[in-house]
């Protein structure tokens, strides 16, 4: 609690600093005197994003701390929101989106970059958002996706959390040995009992990854396959679907949890927080450590180009990086992009969620004393990335092949 109040004071100090920065830089439409008068209290924040990020209590907390006059949020999945925004909606100030969806937004000038100088909490950001990691070409990873300029001063998307995905499974029905590979989703042994994400960008990458492991393909970057590779992967996926491999294709978080918990699927590509949610219902569920490596992604805040509430959006992005929301999402099983999290999270909680330490204290959501987070520490997992989400060069072809798969 004391942490939070300190934080609040810091935050207020920063907000006024932000106002001052606005004065000096003279950015924005309003004259400097007016800018001061038109403080955050006169602005509103209308955000849209997944319900993981657009949470009422986070928004209420932001309103209280920032002093922004009115705050409202709408939860919806990416394809819907992206369609709404690209058809010219003026109903939102920012979109809490995911890295690979940025190109279509920047190409159409639907979003505007945010200056890192306007974000007082940017300084502690993790290295993976700043510099490319080894082994993956720079444009195929997150640090190559979010920046608007080479000097790295302007962000298309202010990252708010990220993760490394793999396969979720029911350990009572599947052994860890069998589950620890992307090929398990397509393993005949689990015919009629597996699930697959219905997002084509995700499903194709995973199929390519599995085909690489099976020796059917050799694609260096599964996130960006060529036309021939897409065709091969589509053939593979269609054959699997026709053979009845998949119990269901899942679309969003709630559905995934529901299908794993109700026993419809015993193994599926999954999000770790969803696996945690299944465990919280008292049902055994584990998260695999795939031999081929993880599929990595980051979610963040993008500012809509025509917003009249620029300062409110920046304050919201800064608020996300300041702490409280990061604790919320960390305890769901995501990672904070800023290292600040270490200072504001209780040490034993941080130990469990970030450092691979055993759980200490009373059981919570199915996690008992001594349990370890599946996959180990953040450092361990971030070193095991197979590929980052991205918008493939052959997107059009991929979408058409995906239609064939769905209709097969």
């Amino acid at each position, binding site marked *: 609690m004391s942490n939070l109040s300190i934080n609040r004071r810091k935050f207020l100090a920063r907000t006024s600093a932000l106002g001052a920065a606005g004065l000096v830089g003279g950015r924005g439409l309003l004259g400097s005197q007016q800018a001061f008068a038109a403080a955050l209290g006169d602005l509103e924040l209308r955000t849209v994003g997944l319900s993981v990020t657009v949470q009422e209590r986070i928004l209420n907390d932001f309103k209280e701390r920032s002093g922004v006059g009115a705050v409202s949020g709408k939860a919806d999945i990416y*394809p819907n929101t992206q369609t709404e925004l690209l058809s010219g909606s003026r109903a939102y100030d920012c979109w809490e989106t995911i890295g690979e969806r940025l*190109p*279509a937004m920047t190409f159409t000038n639907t979003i505007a970059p945010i200056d890192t100088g306007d974000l007082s909490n940017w300084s502690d950001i993790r290295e993976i958002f700043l510099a490319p990691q080894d082994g993956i070409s720079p444009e195929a990873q997150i640090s190559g996706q979010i920046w608007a300029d080479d000097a790295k001063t302007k962000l298309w998307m202010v990252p708010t959390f990220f993760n490394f995905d793999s396969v979720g499974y029911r350990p009572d029905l599947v052994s860890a040995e069998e589950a620890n590979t992307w090929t398990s989703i397509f393993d005949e042994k689990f015919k009629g009992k597996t*699930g697959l994400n219905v997002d084509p960008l995700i499903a194709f990458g995973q199929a390519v990854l599995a085909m690489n492991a099976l020796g059917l393909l050799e694609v260096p970057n599964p996130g960006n396959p060529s036309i021939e590779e897409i065709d091969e992967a589509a053939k593979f996926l269609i054959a699997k679907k026709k053979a009845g491999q998949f119990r269901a*294709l899942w679309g969003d978080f709630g559905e995934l949890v*529901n*299908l794993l918990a109700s026993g419809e699927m015993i193994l599926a590509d999954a999000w770790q927080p969803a696996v945690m949610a299944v465990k919280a219902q008292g049902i055994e569920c584990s998260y695999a450590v795939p031999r081929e490596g993880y599929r990595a992604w980051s979610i963040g805040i993008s500012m809509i180009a025509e917003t009249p509430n620029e300062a409110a959006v920046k304050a919201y992005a800064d608020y996300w990086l300041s702490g409280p929301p990061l604790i919320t999402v960390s305890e769901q099983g995501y990672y904070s992009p800023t290292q600040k999290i270490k200072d504001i999270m209780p040490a034993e909680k941080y130990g469990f969620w970030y450092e691979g330490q055993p759980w200490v204290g009373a059981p919570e959501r199915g996690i008992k004393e001594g349990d370890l987070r599946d996959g180990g520490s953040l450092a361990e997992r971030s070193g095991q990335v197979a590929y980052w989400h991205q918008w493939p060069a052959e997107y059009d072809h991929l979408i058409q092949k*995906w*239609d064939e798969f*769905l209709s097969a």
Partner: protein
Amino acid sequence: MDATAAAVPEAERRRNRASAGLLRRNRHLLLLAPGVIWMVLFLIVPLGMMVYVSFWTQTTFSISSDLTTKSWETFFASETYFAALMRTLRLWLIVLALTFVIGYPTALFIGQYVTNKTTQTVLLVACVIPFWTSFLIRVLAWRPMLGREGAVNIVLEKLGLISQPIEVLLFTELSVIIGMVQIYVVFMVGPIAFMLARIDQSLIEAARDLGASSWTIFRRVIFPLSLPGVIVGAIFVSVMVLGEFATASALSGRKVNLLGNIIVTQVGSLKWAFAAVVGVILTIVMAAVITALLRVVNLRREL
């Protein structure tokens, strides 16, 4: 009626008759205007927009208004979409037949055997009430009903009728059909029941007096008189099933892909031009279906 007529003085009556004559000649224009204006503004304009969009040029990240027929060519060049069209038509025929067969007896009961108007209304509303729970919640409830560890399998296993859960009950075409029939059958029952309730009982009594059997009365009197209701119900069910995507996707685990699903996927994938093509084709299919149904009974005849 007499009281109304008497209350109108002679002069006014004559004036009324004259203006009524003028009104009656052009009355239909007045009656039609609000609806036609509404539909032109809010249906034809956005639809025209989408037909226009179907000729737009689609690139990976954006869509521009340079005209091209590429999206149309893609649709007709691919077997995938033809197969989806066939699947949509097949499911539509099955669901339409089932809603009719399952719904008619209930409509017959409500329309002909329940004589009290209030009871009729109450029964019909009772059929509609499930709809006041969002379809998303209803679809969700089918899963613990039909699923591998769902109610049906639990009961059957307890009764010792099966030893392995029946898996075909959920995430198959069967579950899609069950779900759609449950959702849309009411739209068949309602119009039929209303037509049946309006049948003049003296007609039936006359037929009986002439010695007709119950079956003959049904075949020769009741059924033909209920046909407009059947056609209206069939139109309702047809347009809803042909445009369906949510039930199909939720109850098949997104494995059964109808034309409606393709539209949704393509819109979400930013392929608006192509989605528009599929939408226009789907609309044409529906128009053909409705025209065919109206061939059976022309609702506008005798009006």
